[in-house]
């Protein structure tokens, strides 16, 4: 089957193509060179005037695993407002804050996304995270294993084990849990909270292990680097949501001394203490630091107004935030001396000073960080807003007058204390193609995704070029996944199974000896049963494994 996408306007930043008219050919799920004139083309799509990009990639979205399922169970009233009926092609489910896996897969695809990554897979809960991801249709998935509050790592760090042994453990975890990268959440803080510590600054010691978040970040960032994991250590820093945490974030950037680092949902970590309410934007300082440090990338975790649910591994900060739960119910879990989770429903209000300023801070970050290759479009779904709000967010970035109209409706004091109104920058389609395709693919080490070059997987989105960018990005004209047409005019036309991206870094296998005795002594599961086989991911027939190479 040879398909021709004829005459569309192509945005392919990996190849420097910025809105040029090009033909694209698809054969056997891949993009291929222009065939000889004698070769028959099976199907041609006339795409003159249409915009073509690679399929979009969400590199930080909570789509699977225990905490998301707790959110689903806890919020029937939210789901009842967005029930999704079965069709001859698609299964029923529900959407909004914590959608069912099936609905999440369909809606991502209907929005032009072809891959999404669960950033907080607890090793103890990895098997369930993979089961949920496998039940998320069409899109490709992958997950970052969460380390940094797990007892095995903390005791190695406290005992000053050599860096190589720690890297072996990190490599073992990636293999055992079928992960693509490593994330750290409130480094050591989830553990500290179990010892009843209520805050943990970058240089504050965990009272049992004596380790500091700075030690943990440095050590894990090095290990990830040494193992050749393409994606830098993915950091949810200390002091999430705490006014004044801008300094923590700046110190975190400096802590790694040039090693690659990805700071996630940075909006929640860019707060100053100025003004009458002692809550102010630190976005300009963060953006300046990001601009000055090419080893740093961020995603924003944009807040958009309305009801959502916050689901995080950061039990310490979720406990602190539970007073603001809306509706007034919340869950906290301590998990297996490994990590934890907190699920707190939340309603962001545009007339509330803090929420409105959070909205503005996120947008300031987007607009003040110069390099779209190092800033990714996320709402930290569902923490800042459900992922279905991305088209609205894209319009905010691309359309200054729309942005300023919105700015005029939010809390007046918040609007007055933000520099947002004075920023003229508008994202171009090329910028959007970078930050939602090319850059996340590059950051995650997905070499044949996120671009439209020959040999790349044919994950392609075709948009109507509509002036209202929200409308444009809401319902793409066509979405191709692995070369198959899966959505048309924002509706699923074919349901396929996606793959799971994993990494299999090399490590010294002898670490399993000490791990085995550790598991036997302390854990409630055996080492062999903790590890997830490839078979387990593929045997239900709803997924396959895509092994990505290490660098």
């Amino acid at each position, binding site marked *: 089957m040879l398909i021709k996408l004829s005459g569309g306007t192509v945005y392919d930043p990996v190849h420097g193509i910025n809105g040029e008219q090009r033909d694209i050919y698809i054969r056997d799920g891949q993009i291929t060179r222009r065939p000889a004139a004698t070769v028959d083309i099976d199907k041609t799509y006339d795409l003159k005037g249409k915009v073509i990009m690679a399929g979009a990639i969400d590199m930080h979205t909570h789509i699977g695993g225990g905490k998301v399922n707790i959110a689903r169970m806890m919020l029937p009233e939210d789901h009842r407002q967005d029930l999704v009926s079965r069709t001859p092609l698609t299964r*029923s489910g529900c959407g909004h804050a914590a959608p069912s896996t099936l609905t999440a897969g369909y809606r991502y695809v209907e929005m032009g996304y072809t891959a999404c990554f669960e950033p907080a897979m607890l090793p103890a809960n990895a098997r369930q995270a993979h089961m949920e991801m496998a*039940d998320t249709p069409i899109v490709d998935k992958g997950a970052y294993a969460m380390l940094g509050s797990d007892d095995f790592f903390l005791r190695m760090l406290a005992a000053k084990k050599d860096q190589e042994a720690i890297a072996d453990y990190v490599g073992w975890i990636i293999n055992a849990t079928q992960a693509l990268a490593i994330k750290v959440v409130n480094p050591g803080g989830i553990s500290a909270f179990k010892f009843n510590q209520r805050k943990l600054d970058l240089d504050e010691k965990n009272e049992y292990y004596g380790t500091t978040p700075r030690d943990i970040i440095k050590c894990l960032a090095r290990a990830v680097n040494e193992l050749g994991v393409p994606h830098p250590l993915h950091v949810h820093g200390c002091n999430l949501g705490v006014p004044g945490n801008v300094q923590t974030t700046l110190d975190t950037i400096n802590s790694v001394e040039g090693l690659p680092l990805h700071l996630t949902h940075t909006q929640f970590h860019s707060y100053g203490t100025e003004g009458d309410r002692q809550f102010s934007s630190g976005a300009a300082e963060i953006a300046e630091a990001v601009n000055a440090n090419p080893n740093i990338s961020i995603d924003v975790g944009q807040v958009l107004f309305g009801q959502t649910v916050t689901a995080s591994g950061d039990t310490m900060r979720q406990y602190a935030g539970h007073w603001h739960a809306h509706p007034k119910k919340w869950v906290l879990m301590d998990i297996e001396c490994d990590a934890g989770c907190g699920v707190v429903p939340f309603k962001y209000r545009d007339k509330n000073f803090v929420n409105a300023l959070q909205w503005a801070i996120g947008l300031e970050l987007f607009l003040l960080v110069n390099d779209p290759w190092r800033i990714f479009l996320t709402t930290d779904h569902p923490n800042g807003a459900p992922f279905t709000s991305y088209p609205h967010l894209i319009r905010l970035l691309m359309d200054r007058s729309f942005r300023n109209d919105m700015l005029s409706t939010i809390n007046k004091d918040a609007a007055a204390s933000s520099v947002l109104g004075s920023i003229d920058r508008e994202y171009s389609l090329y910028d959007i193609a970078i930050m939602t395709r090319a850059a996340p693919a590059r950051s995650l080490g997905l070499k044949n995704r996120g671009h439209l070059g020959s040999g790349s997987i044919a994950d392609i989105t075709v948009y109507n070029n509509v002036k209202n960018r929200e409308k444009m990005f809401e319902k793409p004209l066509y979405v191709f996944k692995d070369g198959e047409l899966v959505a048309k005019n924002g509706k699923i036309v074919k349901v396929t199974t996606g793959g799971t991206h994993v990494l299999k870094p090399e490590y010294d296998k002898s670490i399993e000896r000490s791990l085995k005795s550790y598991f036997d002594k302390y854990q409630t599961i055996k080492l062999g049963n903790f590890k997830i086989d490839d078979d387990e991911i593929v045997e239900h027939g709803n997924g396959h494994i895509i092994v990505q190479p290490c660098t």
Partner: protein
Amino acid sequence: MKTKQSLAKVQKDVPCPFCSIHCDDLVIQNQSGKLKVKENGCPISVERFERPLAQSTPAINGKTATLDEAISQAAGIFKKSVEPLIAGLGTDVGGMRSVMELADKTGSIIDHMHHDGAARNMLVLQDLGWVMTTMGEIRNRAELIIFAGTDASNYPRFYERVVWNEQSMFNYDTAKRDIVYIGENLDTSRGKSPTGKKPTHLKCPQDEISEVISVLHALVGGNKTQKKDEIAGIKMAHLEKLAEQMKNTRYGVIVWAPGELDFPHAELTIQNFCEITKYLNRETRFAGFFLGGNDGGMSANNVSAWQSGFPLRVNFSKGYPEHDLQKYATANVLKNKEADALLWISSFNPEIKPPHAKIPTIVLATADTKLDFKPDVFIPVSTPGVDHSGQMIRTDSVVSLPLKQLRNSDNPSVKEVVRRIVELV
């Protein structure tokens, strides 16, 4: 599914599917198809694993049929039905995934056989939320464990694995743990530490535990209570002592078994556990833990939540999922004659019998299940974790186990049978 493969004679680290704490250290020998638990068994696992593989064939109205005929008959029942009920749901994650597909396609109601207990928990989760912990945290961290209305004896190795474990991560002497029981008819003998430290037992009727917890909540909050010598038969001085223990522990846990709190509005008792736990976390660390979800209950509830967006007791008849913890309970649906066909699934425990509803009934059960009536269709199914591999989710709803195949069985899995029905309806 892997069948008829050559299986190792002795398998180690075998996860047990038969209760929801899913011990995974069993050593099981397969001698010509007969299984023997060589190490780390308990009365439940030994009895279930060592049952001989029963021979049985599919049947239609009590008459032997082929598997194809039985599946086709079952599909016919679904096709004629306006409102089917799929209940029991004694299966693993794979079986449940197929059930979800069938329920969605046929507009069925789904409910699990043990969900009366789980529903009490779900009501609290949906109204208040909770602070919970897992087996690994209890094992390594708990200093005070309060068993409220349960003695955990339905989970025989709970004490061995997470209460009286010899080693713990933080050099904590587990034998010093304070164990407290609240409730009646509880066997407190296992609460005695290996060094002889005795547990405290505060005896009261099950339906008065709530009152006891309320008073404890008032005490830990420093509030005044009416001057009474005793509450629910427990001396006030004992409650004052326990309140102090709860405030002063570094990590306390309240354990309950929602299925064992079997009286009207027991969810309010669970709500009390969760409220006091949340309150205690203002100063110290305290968490809840529940024991429940046997026969695949945890797996069924979780799969339902991720695939439909709602925990169990879901009705798909309108084409989208509707969730109601009371309305879609098996007993209510049958009593109110809301279903016109029943698919009953029970692949772990031959003692569990399907309800005898006077509607067309399909039973997928282990081959040695003794039925009190002749269902329209009976299909003997294999058992996950014995006859085929799979996954199950533990009672803490965090850890899931990879089940192993230990012997070859001719009976199909629930996943396989239900999938074939899906193809025909």
